[in-house]
């Protein structure tokens, strides 16, 4: 009987919440907006990062340096030969990088002197600066090659003339910022848990008090515990659906982005998606319980909204504090932090440690059970219901 009663309460609350179209759509929209915005930012970022690699280098006086041309092309630089003056070229296409080989360079080289090349670039422009730095490094390497040949000619081993060599290993590299933004994805899914069920929790608990329907409901042959659990399940369900929608939308949106162009693989298969959804589930139950308990204490809709909005700031905590590989296992008892770490690991293609997952589930369900016991007691307390 108890389960059937629960179903009666849940189906009524779901019907009521679904008919509140505007609130439901607003909740969903907010949850889905995050991944959308993120996908947009990523798209622009990928375009700029890919662009930085593919943009041509304008070469003025290419005929004077066939060796350099070969060297640059071998390194994957797209060259565009030009006979214009560098400053007029830059005026025509701002952000371009121009390498100028003066006519006297071959002569200087032949005489064993230093040939001076010029690199024209707007170093305040991100893309131009990165390209210029790359060209600088390539030209320096080519210069070192030429010096080495000269030394060999003079009977000196090139390494004797270069005691130190510094290699830059660019860890940011291409797609560095893209990876950083991809890491923010789980935050949006977690936010969905808080946003999607908030209006349902409020309407089903504090709302009952405000519209003065609570007394009549409690006077029915159903225990306060059953009522509270029914309301909690409904709120959790809406939060979970919203979060799952954000997750699936992220995947769909990201699949359409050319992430591979910046060297990132993000195409979770069904198994990975299921794992992510399972990680979110216990937290959905906890967030629903927390929202119901908090909203139950609100006397008016407005008051409850303020409390629940404050609660929605909880995921922001993750920007300050997060669990890493160095965190102790018991830290995974902490809800939210643990799920965030697990989702991050899954996005990064790592496997989850079963004992940490167990901790994380235990932490959530334990806290949920306490909140439900508390909420049910409150709903059964005459002092609370009648504000005595």
């Amino acid at each position, binding site marked *: 009987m108890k389960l059937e*009663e629960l179903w*009666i*309460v849940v189906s*009524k609350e779901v*019907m*009521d919440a679904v*008919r*509140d179209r505007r609130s439901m759509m607003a909740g969903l929209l907010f949850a889905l907006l995050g991944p959308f915005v993120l996908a947009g930012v990523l798209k622009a970022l990928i375009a700029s990062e890919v662009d930085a690699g593919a943009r041509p280098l304008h070469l003025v006086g290419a005929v004077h340096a066939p060796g350099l041309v070969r060297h640059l092309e071998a390194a994957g630089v797209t060259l565009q030969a030009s006979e214009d003056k560098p400053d007029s070229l830059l005026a025509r296409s701002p952000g371009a990088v121009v390498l100028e080989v003066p006519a006297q360079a071959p002569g200087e080289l032949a005489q064993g002197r230093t040939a001076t090349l010029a690199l024209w670039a707007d170093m305040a422009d991100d893309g131009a600066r990165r390209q210029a730095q790359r060209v600088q490094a390539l030209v320096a390497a080519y210069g070192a090659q030429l010096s080495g040949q000269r030394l060999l000619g003079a009977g000196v081993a090139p390494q004797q003339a270069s005691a130190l060599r510094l290699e830059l290993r660019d860890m940011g590299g291409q797609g560095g910022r893209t990876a950083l933004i991809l890491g923010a994805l789980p935050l949006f899914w977690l936010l969905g848990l808080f946003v999607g069920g908030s209006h349902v929790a409020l309407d089903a608990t504090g709302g*009952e008090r405000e*519209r*003065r*329907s*609570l*007394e*009549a409901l*409690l*006077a*029915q*042959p*159903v*225990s306060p515990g059953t009522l509270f659990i029914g309301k909690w399940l409904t709120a959790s369900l809406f939060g979970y659906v919203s979060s799952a929608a954000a997750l699936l939308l992220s995947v769909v949106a990201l699949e359409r982005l050319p992430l591979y162009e910046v060297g990132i693989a993000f195409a979770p298969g069904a198994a990975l998606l299921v794992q992510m959804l399972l990680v979110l589930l216990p937290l959905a139950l906890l967030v629903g319980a927390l929202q119901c308990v908090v909203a139950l204490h609100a006397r008016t809709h407005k008051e409850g909204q303020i409390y629940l909005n404050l609660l929605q700031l909880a995921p922001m905590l993750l920007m300050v504090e997060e669990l890493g590989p160095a965190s102790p296992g018991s830290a995974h008892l902490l809800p939210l932090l643990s799920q965030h770490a697990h989702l991050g690991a899954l996005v990064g293609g790592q496997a989850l440690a079963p004992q940490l997952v167990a901790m994380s589930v235990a932490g959530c369900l334990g806290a949920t059970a306490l909140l439900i016991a508390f909420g049910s007691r409150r709903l059964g307390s*005459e002092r609370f*219901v*009648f504000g*005595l």
Partner: protein
Amino acid sequence: MIVVNNISKRFQALRALDGVSFTARPGTISALLGPNGAGKSTCLRILYGLLAPDSGAVAIDGIDVARAPLAARRRLGIVTDEFGLYERLTPRDHLRYFGRLHGMRGAMLERAIERVIGEVGLEAEAGRACKGFSAGQRIKVALARALLHDPAVLVLDEPTRGLDVMSTRAVREALMRARGRGAAVLLSTHVMQEAAQLCDQVVVLAAGRVRFAGTTPALLAQTGSSGLEQAFVEVIGSDEGIAA
């Protein structure tokens, strides 16, 4: 049948009920009559088990409310002091929800829903969301909800408060029909005329105590008054004199 046996209830310093006893028999309508703050709502809330008495007991059809509140509520039809409706649900949705909470299902539930909709005269609004319903339409939904499972005991907290004449009449007719079916009906009111016209028994409550319980002719006879209003003032006033 409602048997209220010597119940007392205190809210901090306030003694809301002080040894209240009365009985409401099947096939009768009883009025719990008293001025505002007399303890009527407290008494009814104890009756349907939302408040626990400090002492004494209430039995609904022989079931102790404090011991088995859910079993007692299954026999009760209740119109509470406040009966806010779910604005997005229709009267039919309301009835289906509360009927199912009372254990009603399927065709039996649907038949009962149509019956009470007819009884309270909600046919025109039954499929419309309750948002924007008038006070009269709202009380009809609450009343239909209370009558749905054909309860042995019907308890109503000031059901005609704020209603127009037509709605008041509809409520009264529904209560008389319930009495005709053999239900024990108890309503609280502070309107003497209502008590006199409708009720077989009047329980006068003032400052948490029963000042009189019996028929209105008996009330008139006991006080030696010709008018009900005078009798009412007499019953409450004389006791207040004693208390002072």
